[in-house]
């Protein structure tokens, strides 16, 4: 079962925080830039106004003539800002007294300097005009002093400040994104810890979670615990049900079989004996089918959530061989073991069941007084349990068909079996990433079934 993951919370939160930080950085950069531009402009205006005023201060009337001395200090002040070009014009009304005649200043009223940004000679200049009224020959003459300066220096300063602000904003942005990523990860850690805690549990570990966690996670923990509770209950119920069902089916079968055996001892007539033998065979048939159906259900159930423990294959093979030896002895079949060390990782009960089914098959199809050989070994990253018999082999049927559910080989006339044995073995192995290999026993001419598992 796989769930398509959505957007990870960590990435979502980090991106969200980064977007906020980026917006803040952009806004603060914009504000710094506009402040810088404004401050630089104001500085230029102040200097321009001071210079124009100091030029106006030198105006005086001498014998009906307006005289002017351009103070050097006024221009050196302007030079202090930058290497910008400076233009000036002093005019009485429309008569230009000195300076650039084509420089047109802003309209002006006496007392207050007025400012304007204007185009002049293909340049953008900041201009200031001050007006001073001089008495000449008892007549009041309004004199306008206009001073203009190109804006390169001011813009340079503003741009410089803006650049600094941009660097600073980027630095703050990166730092903030890094810190939010860290903070997000740190706050999600309890969730990850919990997920890990749950996913590393064995399939049968359904104890409730007892770890402390942040209160936001408590609803999830409680929901998980309730789910595990229900799961445990339903597993218990299905196991009990299977046990009860098996008991109910098998006990009457056992009664029938036992009664039939008793009857077989007492009846004399061959026809009656034949009938009783048929009854016994039918009982054995249904008993085997019931076993294999239950095994099959159990294998599917366990394979869904596979246990992972170290399994020592020689010990496991020996146990299975011991369990089936009395059955083999009934037909004077010897079980011969050839072991070398091999270990795998997985569910011992499933592997045991797979081997039991394969060995059971081998005994069932072997003629009396033959040998069934089990060899266990390790090689090429694979562990292998091979079971070979001296029976009829698999015939001409393609090997792949034999492991399909309820299929049986074409050489099994007169042997009780429902055909699930190899299917169960195959399923148990493939749950471990292994496989079943059906082949020929090269020594005795029978079948050789190999259980192959990835070595641990």
């Amino acid at each position, binding site marked *: 079962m796989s769930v398509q993951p959505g957007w990870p919370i960590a990435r979502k939160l980090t991106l969200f925080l980064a977007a906020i930080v980026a917006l803040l950085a952009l806004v603060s950069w914009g504000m710094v830039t506009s402040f810088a531009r404004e401050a630089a402009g104001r500085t230029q205006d102040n200097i321009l106004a001071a210079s124009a005023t100091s030029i106006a201060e030198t105006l005086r009337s001498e014998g009906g003539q307006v005289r002017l001395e351009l103070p050097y200090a006024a221009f050196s002040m302007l030079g202090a800002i930058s290497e910008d070009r400076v233009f000036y014009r002093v005019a009485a009304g429309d008569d230009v007294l000195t300076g650039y005649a084509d420089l047109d200043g802003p309209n002006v009223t006496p007392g207050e300097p007025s400012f304007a940004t204007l185009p002049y000679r293909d340049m953008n200049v900041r201009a200031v005009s001050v007006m001073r009224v001089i008495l000449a020959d008892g007549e009041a003459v309004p004199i306008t002093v206009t001073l203009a300066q190109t804006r390169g220096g001011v813009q340079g300063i503003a741009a410089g400040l803006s650049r600094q602000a941009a660097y600073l904003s980027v630095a703050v942005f990166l730092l903030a994104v890094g810190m939010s990523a860290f903070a997000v990860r740190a706050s999600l850690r309890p969730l990850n810890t919990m997920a890990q805690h749950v996913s590393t549990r064995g399939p049968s570990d359904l104890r409730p979670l007892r770890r402390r966690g942040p209160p936001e996670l408590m609803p999830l923990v409680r929901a998980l615990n309730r789910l595990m509770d229900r799961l445990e209950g339903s597993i218990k119920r299905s196991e009990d049900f299977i*046990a009860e069902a098996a008991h109910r089916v098998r006990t009457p079968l056992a009664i029938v079989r036992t009664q039939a055996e008793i009857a077989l001892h007492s009846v004399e007539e061959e026809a009656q004996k034949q009938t009783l033998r048929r009854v016994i065979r039918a009982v054995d048939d249904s008993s085997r089918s019931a076993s294999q159906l239950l095994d099959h259900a*159990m294998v599917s159930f366990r394979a869904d959530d596979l246990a992972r423990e170290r399994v020592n294959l020689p010990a496991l093979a020996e146990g299975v061989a011991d369990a089936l030896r009395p059955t083999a002895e009934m037909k004077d079949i010897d079980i011969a073991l050839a072991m070398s060390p091999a270990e795998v990782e997985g569910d011992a*009960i499933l592997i045991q069941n797979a081997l039991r089914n394969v060995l059971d098959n081998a005994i069932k199809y072997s003629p009396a007084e033959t040998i069934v050989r089990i060899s266990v070994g390790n090689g090429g990253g694979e562990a292998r349990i091979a079971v070979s018999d001296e029976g009829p082999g698999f015939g001409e049927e393609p090997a792949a068909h034999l492991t399909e559910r309820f299929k049986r080989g074409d050489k099994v006339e007169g042997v009780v079996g429902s055909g699930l044995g190899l299917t169960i073995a195959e399923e148990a192995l493939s749950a471990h990433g292994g496989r079943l290999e059906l082949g020929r026993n090269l020594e005795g001419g029978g079948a050789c079934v190999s259980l192959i598992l990835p070595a641990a």
Partner: protein
Amino acid sequence: MRFLLVEDNAELADSVVQRLGLDGHAVDHAATLSDAEAHLEVADYDLILLDVMLPDGDGRDFLARSRDRINTPVIVLTARSQISDRVGALDQGADDYITKPFDFSELEARCRAVLRRRGGLARNEITLGAAVFEPNAGTLRHGDAVMELRNREIRLLEVFARNPGHILSKSQLMDRLFSHDEDVTENAIEVYVGRLRRKLDGVGVRIETVRGAGYRMSL
């Protein structure tokens, strides 16, 4: 052998007692765990056949509880699938298990295997002419020579030895020797009888063919 059968289903218990009786075994029946305890206090048994699901508890719990008090070998009769039950039963001290419904020849084979393992198999000697047959050990001693018999030879010889002078039909012998899921012809019996005749050569015991009826061993 003397068995204690712990099984709550009366019908099954009756037929098992009867069936084991046919093979000459003595069986006491207990329907509950407390009944079983009572039996174990007053009698000694060679083997306990223990059902798992009993009205007053789980047979495996009983096993775990009383393993240190009771030294009698136990074979668990289970109705469950081996995969889930076998591990639990063996871990809790059962010597073996067998799934219901069971073949009585297999049950007997498992009983013998358990008793052999536990060293509790009683000596059981049957004198056949000049030789001594030990079914539990699977040997036939004749003077200094000890012959090992295979499982089917033992079972066949046992039937003859317990029914001396009786005519045993081929089909009777086949039921004794082969499981019901094996397809064998009556010729198979001739093979085993032939082998026994060779092994009994010089012992003073003969297995005669009674034409149209079967075989008879005469001492």
